[in-house]
């Protein structure tokens, strides 16, 4: 496969829909999702692979869409936060107040979606390893931990109330 022109057509499978777009070869997957498809749930936070706000699932695996070219996602199954509807993770985030400003939330949720699919019985070490890929600046993470535990059916330490 070779592509000689800077703007090229690409077919992506996003949230179970097949979508066509003309993109720049230099466009990241995040650029394509937001600008071509209007899927603004994936957030630009750093465009450097550091904050995780743009995390989506590629073939079930969390990926930071800011450090992946749109072309690299061709032929793969992409799920963004818009592709979830009432998932247990979303519900747990609401019930545990696991967000405030909400900007990092889609990235966290997608990462956790990937986590529970791969490790339905994840222990603390695994949860930490995965969730350390994302930054939340509003919450204390304690709320996010409670949400993950709720989804995994674990108990969290009771706060003093």
């Amino acid at each position, binding site marked *: *496969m*070779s*592509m*000689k*022109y*800077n703007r*090229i057509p690409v077919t992506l499978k996003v949230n179970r829909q097949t979508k066509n777009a003309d993109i*720049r*070869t*230099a*466009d*990241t997957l995040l*650029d394509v999702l937001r600008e071509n498809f209007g899927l603004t749930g994936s957030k630009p936070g750093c*465009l*450097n*692979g550091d904050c*995780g706000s743009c*995390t989506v699932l590629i073939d079930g*695996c*969390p*990926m*930071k869409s*800011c*450090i*992946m*070219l749109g*072309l*690299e996602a061709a032929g793969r199954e992409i799920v963004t936060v818009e592709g979830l509807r009432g998932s247990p993770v979303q519900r747990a985030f609401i019930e545990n107040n696991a967000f405030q400003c909400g900007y990092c939330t889609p990235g966290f949720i997608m*990462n956790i979606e990937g986590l529970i699919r791969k490790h339905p019985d994840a222990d603390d070490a695994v949860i930490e*390893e*995965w969730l*350390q*890929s*994302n930054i939340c600046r509003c919450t204390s993470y304690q709320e996010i931990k409670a949400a993950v535990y709720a989804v995994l059916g674990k108990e969290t330490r009771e706060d003093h109330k």
Partner: protein
Amino acid sequence: MIGFDFEYYRPKTLAEAVNFYHMLKERGKRPVYYSGGTELITMARLNQVIFGSVIDIKGIPDTWIYGYSEQDLIIGSSISLTDLEEDRDFPLLSQTAGRVADRTSRNKITIGGNICGKIIYREAVLPFLLADSRVLIAGRNGSRIVPISNIFEQEVQLAEDEWIVQFLTDRSILSLPFFTVKKRKLDVIDYPLLTLAAIKKDEHIRVAVSGLCAFPFRSEAIETILNNRSMPKELRIKEAVDRLPAPVLNDWIASAEYRRFVFQNTLMEMFTALEGDEK
């Protein structure tokens, strides 16, 4: 947003990749080989690298090989650090590579990319240096296999059209006792103050370090002194610090003095792990 445009090629064979390189080079398209791409994308956004075309090697099946030949564990350069972390055939590599960047990024970063990258740490090379691994290199004259020490001196030293296809590691090395640790300034996700990896083969300790100096290294001089069992460990450690191959990094992450202090502590931890309490 990357400001400049480039062409994108995804060859299917080693030869095609190298041919693309020459074709693009001749046409002034400033080609680069592209593996995980995380570093190229992030540096391109800041114009820290500029290229006219990328050759994405992930379409080449040879780069995806993971498994054993008769004597060797073969690891294709497109294998992600996450996959290596989970395939525990080479635990030293799993653990050392498993501390680069963060988990989600490691899903994208490849072993080839980490070792060939511009960021100075290249921690995933340490296990291969210790294991005297060999690398399969693709280039104009076909493929060749060479010891990694021949092509890694501070960084990967290859002709511009050459690139690493696979890493070959002798099976007998994989299960040796080892020690690996990444010391950071404070944070769990950060560049290293230093990453130290070691294995023990035939009572001889091999040590490789990243982050302490401006490049990763394995040093014969340091191994000689560290294995000199006629000296107390403290003295060996002290002398090892004096024999570093380059000045200790002195930057905004940490001062050289503090890095030296951490290095000494880490060597002691390594001794404890590999030698127990023996003198």
